[in-house]
């Protein structure tokens, strides 16, 4: 990622911003699908019932927390791997 000059850096940042937006949308739609699949199985009513709503709130909460935790560990491991050079020539 080093060795980019200022204008290259700008182009790179612009692309990363677009990518981040896309990733966020993907994350959102995955979350909807996961929580729908895990929480909503009863179609005897038209709207979400209480139980389903509680489940969905917990599902979102828990998945956000687990992805934050995974991200922390991932950063640590990734940094350690880069530093130790275990994947270096």
């Amino acid at each position, binding site marked *: *990622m080093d060795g980019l000059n200022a204008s290259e850096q700008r182009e790179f940042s612009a692309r990363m911003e677009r*990518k981040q937006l896309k*990733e966020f949308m993907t994350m959102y739609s995955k979350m909807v699908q996961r929580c729908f699949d*895990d929480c909503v199985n009863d179609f005897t009513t038209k709207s979400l019932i209480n139980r389903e709503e509680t489940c969905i709130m917990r599902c979102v*909460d828990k998945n956000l927390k687990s992805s934050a935790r995974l991200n922390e560990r991932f950063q640590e*491991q990734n940094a350690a791997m880069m530093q130790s050079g275990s*994947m270096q020539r």
Partner: protein
Amino acid sequence: MSFLFGGAPKMSSAEKIAAAETEVEMISDMFNRLTESCTKKCVPADYREGDLNKGESVCLDRCVSKFFDVNIKVSEKMQGEAAGKQGGGMGLM
């Protein structure tokens, strides 16, 4: 991961940006796959509470660590295989 591209001598701007982009893409792709696997393995789909409990948290931590281990093992194995085929041309690791 810069080790793949670090050695290239002269690259155009477009190439350099593309290389940097590929690097980020590889890492974020790895993270997405890890998230998918570890969530599936560690977080049960009955949402009794909104917080991660102790067992789930520990499981996630260990899962990340093992995912990295597997990555390294596979990469070593495949590089060994490639080196074997080329008559030991590249002594990696």
